[in-house]
């Protein structure tokens, strides 16, 4: 074939026993929408980097997945989001770590790639760069869903740390 796209929405202890039918249906719908968005760009002759950004943006908006809206919470109940993007044509790359307000962290990574001389920006500086670049900003509450709060509270109630549940909740 002349174009190909693949996506993932996380890996871990995902079994038919632990994933209820509604969540499975939602995840499958989200995967389908994301892969179709990327495929549409590629089928129209668009670039691979535009396709992967478009697909990931949809997954970031979908609460079934651990990124953007629906992201795992830190021990203090906050969101700290990471993202990266890389173009195989020239190995140009952009990444962000620990950002808190940008709705689509992958697009912030794309701005790091295209509008800065750097590869990786982190924390408050990356948040400031996002504002400077005019990227869509949201309140931290936008990212949080009840299931993630429940998972965090369950972990804290057990006195555990994140490696106790790494692949279950991450």
């Amino acid at each position, binding site marked *: *074939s*002349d*174009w*190909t*796209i*693949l*996506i*993932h*929405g*996380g*890996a*871990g*202890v*995902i079994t038919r026993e632990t994933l209820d039918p509604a969540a499975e249906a939602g*995840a*499958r719908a989200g*995967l*389908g929408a*994301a*892969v179709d968005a*990327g*495929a549409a760009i*590629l089928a129209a*002759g*668009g*670039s*691979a980097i535009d396709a*992967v950004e478009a*697909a*990931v943006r949809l997954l970031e908006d979908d609460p079934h997945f*651990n*990124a953007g809206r629906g*992201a795992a*919470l830190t*021990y203090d109940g906050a*969101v*700290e*989001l*990471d*993202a*990266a*993007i*890389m*173009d*195989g044509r020239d*190995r140009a790359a952009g*990444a962000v*770590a*620990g950002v808190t307000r940008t709705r689509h962290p*992958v697009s912030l*990574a794309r701005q790091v790639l295209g509008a800065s001389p750097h590869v990786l920006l982190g924390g408050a500086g990356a948040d400031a760069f996002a504002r400077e670049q005019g990227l869509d900003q949201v309140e931290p509450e936008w*990212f949080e869903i009840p299931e*993630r709060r429940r998972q965090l509270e369950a*972990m804290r109630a057990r006195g555990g*740390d*994140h490696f106790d549940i*790494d*692949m279950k*909740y*991450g």
Partner: protein
Amino acid sequence: TVGAVARDVAGHVAAATSTGGVTGKRWGRIGDSPLIGAGTYADDRAGAVSATGAGEFFIRIGVAHEIAARKRMLGETMLGAGDAVIAELGAMGGSGGVIVVDKEGEGGWRFNTPGMYRAMASGGGRRRIAIF
């Protein structure tokens, strides 16, 4: 963690990855996703990789770059290289998976966990969505 890899009609590849990390992370912990070469890598000389899983292991191995480098320097297929690197990951105690696409447009996934949310589509009409 979510991600995508693609090869376009011009033969170029790209990768992207985005994540919230792990529940209860502390001290500014950062996983592999934003570290170029660990969780994300793209090189037209080989292909593109996006990873999901226990980030500390992916960082130590440099999983995404390692897969691309094996293709470029050893002549392995991306999926063959993925097999080898995920096996190494498992031997170290790590778990997770990768999606890959090579410069010729052949794509696939490798993982050592019970499930990975994943999907693919191609210009040849293939479309697949899978979890388990």
